[in-house]
């Protein structure tokens, strides 16, 4: 809209800013108690579009606030470098549909190594392209992490994640919080 000078009166926001705002003002009640004893480690992929490309760390800092609120600060492991200095996962710019698969995967190896270095079992990817690329890296290079949408872990922490909404969870969390009938506890 900026690029084409299209006039508009609405405000443009990332859902991540809203998650953070709702958690801060108490609208959204979440906590990380579920992971206190499990101590499952999480890292997060910073999408370039909400980090470096907006020229401020505001949204990627909100992202960390939200993730720490739902998995526990002590269970969050950041990649290095991160935030506005992150490495692109290699799935951006249309690369997933650009046809240069071998090159895309070589590009993503930088990100894959960064993820492995954190030792985290889960990578939270708030962007669909990053999700697809990081999952593909895991299969291609034989990683042992799982790639999650952000909403999955928020709902898990709120105890409202349905049985059919767990495609990307590993076996350790696949049935977490479900009662024996498959409903939500």
């Amino acid at each position, binding site marked *: 809209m900026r690029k084409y000078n299209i006039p508009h009166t609405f405000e443009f926001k990332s859902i991540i800013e809203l998650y953070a705002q709702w958690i801060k003002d108490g609208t959204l009640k979440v906590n990380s108690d579920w992971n206190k004893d499990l101590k499952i480690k999480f890292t997060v992929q910073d999408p370039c579009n909400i980090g470096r490309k907006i020229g401020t760390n505001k949204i990627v800092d909100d992202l960390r606030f939200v993730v720490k609120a739902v998995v526990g600060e002590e269970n969050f492991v950041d990649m290095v470098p991160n935030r506005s200095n992150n*490495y692109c996962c290699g*799935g951006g710019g249309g690369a997933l549909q650009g046809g240069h698969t071998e090159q895309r995967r070589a590009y993503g190896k930088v990100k894959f190594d960064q993820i492995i270095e954190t030792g985290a079992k889960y990578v939270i990817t708030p962007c669909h392209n990053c999700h697809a690329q990081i999952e593909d890296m895991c299969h291609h290079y034989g990683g042992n992490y799982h790639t999650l949408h952000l909403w999955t872990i928020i*709902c898990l922490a709120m105890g409202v994640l349905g049985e059919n909404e767990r495609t990307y969870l590993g076996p350790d969390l696949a049935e977490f919080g479900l009662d024996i009938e498959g409903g939500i506890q």
Partner: protein
Amino acid sequence: MAEAIKLQEFTCDFKDEVANRIPEANFDLCLTCGTCTGGCPASEQYGMDPRKFLRMLLLGMDDEIKKSPWAWVCTMCGRCMSACPMKINIPKFVYNVRASWDRDKRPKGIRGSCDQHIKAGNAMGVPKEDFVFTVEDVANEIREASPEFSDLEITADRVGAYMALNQNSREPVTEPDELGPLWKILHRAKADWTYPTVMWGGENYCMFLADDEGWRYIMEEFVYHIEHNLKCKVVVNTE
């Protein structure tokens, strides 16, 4: 053996052309330091890297630049520019290289998604009715499965909703169950929101295709729908 570049054979037509389009790009200020290349995950792919690509522009190697598939391997992530001591806009240079390709020679996958978006409002080419049907179907399942969400209401094109949400079109098509968690959070937060059905896909393949006209059309249609039809105060990007 590599052949020496004969500079007198070159004019810098492409550089002038791109510099005219992006006056703030500062191509001439390149110090050849290589900081861009050192931090670029696309370096070495197809024997190319950001510094080399930029030097080729400055030397007028226009044909070689336009022939290189590297413009489609670079993701325009912007790390080179943010590290560059002279703040040279390499991503926009790459965008313009992409735009210099004949449209029908650009990668088929990206082009197809851009075409679908122009036609149907999303890269997967889902007709509006199918999107609305899928949403209602998934919402029904959630209402039936969990009593605490029995009053879950998902609307499309609801005039006056405070927020309009876009959605990556792969979700309703390839993994509709992934819609539920997002809705549950919005429900818990008592958010007042709706899905627009015009240009509702959160993705933007026309931008990746460097199709300025297509990109502009999508944005204009979207903004018009939000401003004039739905009158939402906030547009929320869900990824």
